């Protein structure tokens, strides 16, 4: 398993990567909240948000194509839920087309709702990709903890992060074993499909038993080393001048975009 499975590109070295994780977390949250409250017709605001993010993505030396590809993760939900909305609305119609035998009308209001969801979810996803591609996951957790996320939650998440690699490796070995034994048939209907579902179910069952036993062993090993329910770690997080500078500049940019929206 490659180490970068979870937080690819977070080990690069750039101005953005060197900031305190809390600066990046708070900036990302501020950005997403700002996008959330922007009215859908504020076209220039969305363009400016995009320019701001694009500048930071370039500054962080992330490959733009990789970021774009990953941001497409919001599309399935939009397609499933929202794509019908423009055809259902009642308000003012922007156009009406004959598609084969159906008469399809697009409502202006519906299009606006679709645009609103699409642009906001996409910009927010871009911001989160920027966060997770510039922050190693343990640093992200450390930052969240210092920002007040309950300690127990952070501890559980750290354990989860630690063992995702072990168990994902386990899954890959099991999958390879299945595939090399012809576990994947070409015909996937009827009995063959049921057989494949049974195979996957048995694999997950095996994985559960192995995971549970591993959790027991891990706990035993921890108790043997004096675990008493508390995890004590050194935390060297520190806001430096660059953090204050970046935070101030980023907030100023968001406020400026807000101001432009209000004026126009």
């Amino acid at each position, binding site marked *: 398993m490659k180490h970068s499975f979870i937080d690819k590109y977070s080990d690069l070295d750039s101005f953005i990567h060197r900031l305190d994780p809390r600066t990046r977390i708070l900036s990302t949250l501020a950005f997403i909240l700002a996008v959330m409250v922007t009215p859908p017709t504020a076209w220039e605001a969305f363009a400016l948000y995009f320019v701001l993010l694009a500048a930071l993505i370039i500054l962080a030396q992330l490959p733009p194509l990789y970021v774009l590809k990953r941001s497409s993760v919001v599309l399935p939900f939009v397609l499933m839920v929202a794509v019908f909305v423009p055809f259902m609305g009642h308000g003012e119609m922007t156009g009406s087309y004959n598609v084969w035998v159906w008469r399809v009308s697009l409502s202006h209001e519906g299009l606006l709702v679709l645009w609103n969801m699409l642009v906001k*979810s*996409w910009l927010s996803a871009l911001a989160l990709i920027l966060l997770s591609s510039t922050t190693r996951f343990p640093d992200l957790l450390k930052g969240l903890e210092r920002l007040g996320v309950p300690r127990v939650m952070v501890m559980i998440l750290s354990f989860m992060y630690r063992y995702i690699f072990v168990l*994902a490796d386990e899954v890959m070995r099991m999958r390879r074993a299945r595939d090399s034994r012809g576990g994947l048939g070409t015909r996937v209907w009827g009995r063959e499909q049921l057989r494949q579902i049974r195979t996957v179910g048995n694999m997950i069952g095996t994985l559960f038993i192995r995971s549970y036993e591993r959790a027991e062993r891990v706990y035993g090993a921890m108790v043997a080393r004096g675990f008493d329910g508390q995890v004590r770690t050194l935390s060297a997080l520190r806001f430096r001048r660059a953090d204050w500078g970046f935070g101030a500049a980023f907030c100023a940019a968001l406020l400026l975009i807000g101001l432009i929206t209000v004026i126009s």
Partner: protein
Amino acid sequence: MHIPDGFLNTATAAATYVVSAGGVGYSIKEANKKLGEKHVPLMGVMGAFIFAAQMLNFPVMGGTSGHLIGGALAAILLGPWAGALIMTCVLIVQALVFQDGGITALGANVFNMALLACFAGYYLYRAVVSLMGENRTGTLVGGFVGAWASVFVAAIACAIELALSGRVPLGVALPAMAGVHALIGIGEGLITAVVLSFVMATRADLLQLQKV
């Protein structure tokens, strides 16, 4: 059905955040009370287990594939509060690392896919088992029904939240989400039943764990 950012209005996002924070806070307390200090490594490794199990795809139809979601399975094996806590961790990692579900929508996603799904799955499973008896058939049918329902109620809640946010009319969202997820739920139900059958055949004692 991970809701991305921008799909919920502020009121719905805030309300679901409050409810979910309360639910998750209580589940941490329950886990701590019943499992003691063991709950931290156990919940963490189980979160990683659900995460890894979701990597295993099975064919659905027409060349598409699906994977286990796991809320009902976690709840049946470890109890509803533990299941909700585990699924919350999975959802947090998915949102932060894979942008699967938004940050402002995290409260709603936790409410639908962790709290609602685990409780619906667990209690329907219990109901079926108490009706059909604590035997192989009862467990398997209960697992299927519970897992199917966990997907179905989460989808319905998701549709209602979208409608409350004024994004999609309920008349459109509800049939679309309910219809698609009634089908997805069949796969979830079958896989969950097979997993339970496997665990029963190899380590039946793990089905009798203390439920949290």
